[in-house]
């Protein structure tokens, strides 16, 4: 059952992957100027050796019809060949994977922290609906959604690094080198990511919890004589967590944009920082690579969420 569902979902991904890659392929064509020079990052009249130029021209297959160019490029991409970075002079995928490690810490840490804030927060707001607690938490949600991330990050730097001096303002230390220093460096960027995601998740958690509280099974559980604590925090929360789980999964695309900003503010060397740096150095192979990488990440996470959903909720039987 699960195998068949998984296979079906993967097959369904084929048109999605086609669309996504076509978008990326054609977006790269909107650049004004000679595409070979652009892909080589040599835009402002820089000199490029004949050899390099011809190699790139061949790679792009510019003498071929567009559809052939695309298919050729797609087959390279699907085999993990995202091209060779101009600035790093090595495989773009390698560059990206290397930078993915700090980003993964930030994403996973941020998501976990967000859930830790949002789930109890959402439940409290729902249980104490329309009271001071609810207003306070809803206020947090509205602020979390309204305050631009980069500004929140700067204010955090101002308070915790500049005024209080508790944490470093920018940078990164690898955890295997000095774990405490790693934690100090990741604390601020991770908190900014977490607060941002938590606002959205809290809003869903509250809403869903409110709706669950009116379901028949809650009345049955209460009628059975279960205490309110058990009913709410065990029965209702367990059902409501399914939604939380989906919402967190759906945040993946947003999260990619979020880390790009956060990494830029904190000079945190992940793939978002790499993306911005590559835009600055006009290393379009890497720009293209990072965008593709992020989209594939989104697609894969959503696929996993879908599959896990069927595992967690036996009621769901997709046809």
């Amino acid at each position, binding site marked *: 059952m699960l195998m068949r569902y998984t296979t079906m979902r993967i097959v369904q991904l084929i048109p999605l992957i086609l669309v996504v890659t076509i978008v990326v392929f054609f977006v790269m064509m909107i650049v004004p100027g000679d595409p070979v020079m652009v892909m080589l990052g040599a835009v402002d009249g820089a000199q490029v050796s004949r050899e390099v130029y011809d190699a790139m021209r061949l790679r792009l297959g510019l003498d071929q019809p567009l559809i052939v160019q695309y298919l050729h490029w797609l087959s390279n991409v699907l085999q993990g060949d995202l091209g060779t970075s101009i600035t790093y002079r090595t495989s773009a995928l390698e560059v990206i994977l290397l930078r993915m490690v700090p980003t993964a810490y930030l994403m996973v840490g941020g998501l976990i922290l967000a859930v830790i804030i949002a789930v109890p927060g959402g439940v409290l707001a729902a249980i104490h609906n329309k009271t001071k607690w609810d207003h306070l938490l809803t206020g947090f949600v509205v602020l979390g959604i309204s305050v631009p991330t980069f500004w929140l990050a700067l204010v955090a730097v*101002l308070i915790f690094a500049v005024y209080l001096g508790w944490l470093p303002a920018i940078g990164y230390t690898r955890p295997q080198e000095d774990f405490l220093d790693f934690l100090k460096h990741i604390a601020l960027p991770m908190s900014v990511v977490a607060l941002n995601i938590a606002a959205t998740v809290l809003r869903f958690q509250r809403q869903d919890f409110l709706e669950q509280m*009116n379901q028949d099974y809650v009345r049955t559980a209460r009628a059975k004589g279960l205490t309110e604590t058990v009913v709410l925090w065990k029965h209702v929360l367990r059902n409501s967590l399914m939604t939380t789980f989906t919402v967190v999964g759906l945040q993946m695309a*947003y999260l990619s*944009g979020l880390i790009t*900003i956060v990494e830029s503010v904190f000079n945190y060397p992940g793939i978002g920082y790499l993306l911005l740096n590559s835009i600055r150095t006009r290393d379009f192979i890497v720009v293209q690579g990072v965008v593709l990488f992020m989209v594939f990440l989104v697609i894969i996470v959503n696929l996993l969420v879908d599959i896990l959903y069927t595992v967690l909720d036996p009621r769901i039987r997709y046809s």
Partner: protein
Amino acid sequence: MEAHSTNAATVFEPPAVQSPRISRSIVAFAARDRRFIVGVILLVLYIFISLIGSSISPYDLNAPNLDVRMQAPSSAHWLGTDRIGRDVLTRIIAGSQVSLQVAVGAVVMALILGAPLGALGGYIGGTFDALVQRVMEGIMAFPSLVLALALVALAGPSVVALWFAIAFSSVPRYARLIRSGVLTQKEREYVDAARAMGQSPLRILFRQILPNIMAPIAVQLTQDFARAITVEASLSYLGLGLSVPYISWGTMIRDAQDFLELAPWLAIFPGLALAGVILAFTFVGDALRDQMDPRLRASLTRRLA
């Protein structure tokens, strides 16, 4: 409102469709909502300020005045001065013009591109609809900020490039909204009647179907305005937005971050302006949404992405 019980699995379905009378009453109800009133007041202020522009300020927008460099807020300079002595308030007022100009353009563009695709897909159905749906799903898989970033980086920063870059990821939202509206209304009796009367499909779309889906579109618009303003400021902050002579709040904050310790007001006030405008749109959108189908409430939070 909270009493409606909705199955968790249906949370992400397209919004239910309202009749025109309900659409109107939504605005009437929302007008009693404090958030709606605060939001509308803030928005009117924002639009008014950006329309009259920085001409109301006694200070020159761009001319440096080195005698008053990096001054903290005072009675002469309410929000302080920057590193070459320009008045911060004057520049924030000028910045409102850029954010409004970019946001309006981006939202209109998303609507112009998305609405016909959704309407045609819903109306024609079949292969065309399936194709449009797949393309829309593909676009939705992209992180919108990252896509906008790449588009602007490639095309170079210009007002039109920003409109397109920001609009691009909103197109599917409008296409889907209008498609679902067309699909649910298409089979209704009043549409049949209109068709029997010999009205053209376009006329039916504008006169019959569109008025019925105005409420969810209005909510979507408020969210998209907020998103467009956020993305414009973020791009400018990252150094990819409009350059001089345009003044963007994002650029102001970017320039200010080197002086965070010396002159925090340079970063704080443009950020407050930005947050205030986004808050206003969020308030108005939330108030409208709360008067509609409770299931729609959930879809709001998916903006930004």
